[in-house]
């Protein structure tokens, strides 16, 4: 019962984080939202009984992806221009 509740709450949080990763104009904020999404995705993997994937997502998704994104934003520019 409680496990099912967790399986309902976590995907919703993931989707919310991903929506805001798209909507935010500040690319740094978008990168932070992607990182948060990745973190919760990893928790979801962990709860879906896949600890191997959770470690990989921790190392790659939550850490290195953010790092590369931030480096790329640093090399280009921060704000997404208003359309």
């Amino acid at each position, binding site marked *: 019962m409680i496990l099912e509740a967790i399986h309902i709450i976590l995907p919703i949080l993931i989707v919310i984080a991903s929506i805001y990763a798209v909507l935010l104009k500040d690319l740094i904020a978008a990168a932070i939202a992607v990182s948060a999404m990745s973190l919760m995705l990893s928790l979801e993997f962990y709860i879906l009984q896949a600890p191997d994937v959770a*470690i*990989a997502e921790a*190392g790659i998704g939550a850490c290195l992806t953010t790092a590369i994104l931030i480096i790329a934003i*640093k090399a280009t520019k921060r704000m997404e221009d208003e359309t």
Partner: protein
Amino acid sequence: MSEMSKIVRTISSISFPLIIIYGLYIISHGHLTPGGGFQGGAVVASGCAMILVAYGSIWTIGKMKEKNLSLLESIGAICFILLAIFGLGFGAVFFNNFLVGSDFLFGTIPSAGSTIANINTGGVIPLMNFAVGIKVIAGLFAIVLVMAHASSTREGKK
């Protein structure tokens, strides 16, 4: 301005060996606990990325050239594919786990069911873990290092 503050540097220095040894632990216990070559490699590469962010990419590239990293990655990949080809030589086909059951290196078979961690199992899998681990460490760190260095020397090029 390419270094972070003293506190961050000190903590990075302290936790760097811990992250490295922990990543190696994950690599070496890949066949027993969650983890393996990719995960452990990612952990160690992240640790190196921490040193990069704490000390700056110019300091880091003085310690570790990307050429050497590329070489290291090649060596890891060659080890991996040679282990696969050894399967052709010793056993019958590619990716044959020729060491399992041979009582040689990592050759024993664990008792069925729930066991405690016995590192001396898995046949060729731990060796492959190490090869892939070397490869992933060098590869991921090379990506971060090259990109960081390129972004920090942008003004110099223009």
